[in-house]
């Protein structure tokens, strides 16, 4: 092997890396928040809804969880413009929005299952106690079921959020200018393919570490009543 690793050219294009990094962070945050809201809504449908609501939620969850994200991304990328054209609106959605939609819808299905498991673990008498205090179903869901459920499944949520952030690299295939795209551009300019990918991979690793640290701090702040030794 007569290849010498040179990282210099890669760092010269740090501006591209930085903007890609910011875009990845932005995509991740929006997808995490949107996916979380979607997940909670569908988790409620699955645990409290009638047959129709449960059915719709089940179809959503199973379809997303049993198909690859790449295929979902293409369905969104081709499908939404066609749908908009059908409505006769002269809008051309930017890849950014298509990526956000695909990422959020994808994450939502996984969050639904995780949150549902947390809600199912709430002892029935606790819900009965809340019902007996004359709380409405929505009050019970938001104040009595959701907080302990989220605290319980937080490690699983954290893992899923990090997976989603890493998975955002896939949206590079529809030309969203995030970190993986930046890597592609840099390596095609500098021909330092291996070094570029090493640097970018290290950055993803750093992002994962950072995201985990942030989420763990949120958990410690939001749930002081959960002692560390307890599960």
């Amino acid at each position, binding site marked *: 092997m007569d290849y010498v690793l040179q990282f210099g050219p890669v760092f010269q294009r740090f501006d591209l890396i930085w903007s890609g990094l910011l875009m990845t962070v932005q995509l991740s945050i929006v997808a995490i928040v949107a996916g979380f809201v979607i997940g909670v809504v569908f988790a409620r449908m699955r645990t409290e809804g009638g047959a129709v609501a449960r059915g719709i939620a089940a179809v959503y969850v199973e379809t997303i969880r049993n198909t690859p994200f790449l295929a979902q991304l293409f369905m969104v990328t081709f499908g939404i413009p066609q749908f908009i054209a059908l409505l006769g609106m002269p809008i051309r959605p930017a890849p950014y929005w298509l990526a956000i939609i695909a990422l959020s819808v994808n994450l939502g299905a996984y969050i639904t299952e995780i949150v549902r498991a947390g809600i199912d673990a709430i002892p029935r008498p606790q819900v009965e*106690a809340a019902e007996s205090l004359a709380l409405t179903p929505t009050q019970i869901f938001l104040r009595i079921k959701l907080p302990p459920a989220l605290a319980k499944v937080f490690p699983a949520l954290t893992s899923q959020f990090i997976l989603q952030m890493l998975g955002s690299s896939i949206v590079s295939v529809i030309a969203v200018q995030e970190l993986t795209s930046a890597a592609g551009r840099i390596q095609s300019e500098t021909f330092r393919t291996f070094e570029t990918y090493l640097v970018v991979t290290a950055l993803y690793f750093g992002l994962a570490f950072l995201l985990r640290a942030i989420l763990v701090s949120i958990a410690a702040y939001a749930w002081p009543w959960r002692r560390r030794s307890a599960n």
Partner: protein
Amino acid sequence: MSVVKAKNISKSYNKTVVLRDISLTVESGEVLVLLGRSGSGKSTLLRCLNGLEQIQAGSVEVAGHEMIYSGEALRALRRDVGIVFQQYNLFPHMTVGENIMLAPHLVKKVPRKEMARKAREVLDKVGLLDKFDAYPDRLSGGQQQRAAIARSLAMEPKLMLFDEVTSALDPQLTGEVLAVMASLAQSGMAMVVVTHEMGFARRVADRVIFMHDGRIIEEGPPEQLFSAPSTPEFKAFLAQTD
């Protein structure tokens, strides 16, 4: 005025009949104790009184509310009826104070300052004023049950239901809970209590009911019932528990 008026109620789970044609009244200020073996239907009967269990036949009127199984009607009824369960009463993610203030805040829309004042008042009644800011996992079982009683009292109910509230407690802790219930009875609260604590039944109950196989087979003031049981089932029950 009757606080509970149950007429000919029946209830089944799938094919099993749990309550057979039961009629029952409770007057305001009266303490009624339900006794019976497990499976006799006593807990089910109690839970029918605040709508946690649905009856298939008969009528129930509690605290002036007719039992209608719709969300809004049940909530209206439950504003006037408090219940304490055997376990898992308190919400673990809130302090004791927050537990108590939750329902008055959300349901009766009580303003903040008054809420905290009332909460402390009712906590003081059960002897737990110093635990206002504690989380439930820091409390003993007996303290948790007393806090649960306080939480129900904060809604100023007309009737209190107790479902074997001391059965899951260590024996040393049952005393403090029974004492709170006794003083509650003294203060004139109408209560229906399912319990195995015979001493409590003797001392505090105005009336005792013995259930067997979904029916009320003995009914009357405790001194009378305990000294002269008329049915073989109740005789056997007394022999076992005393």
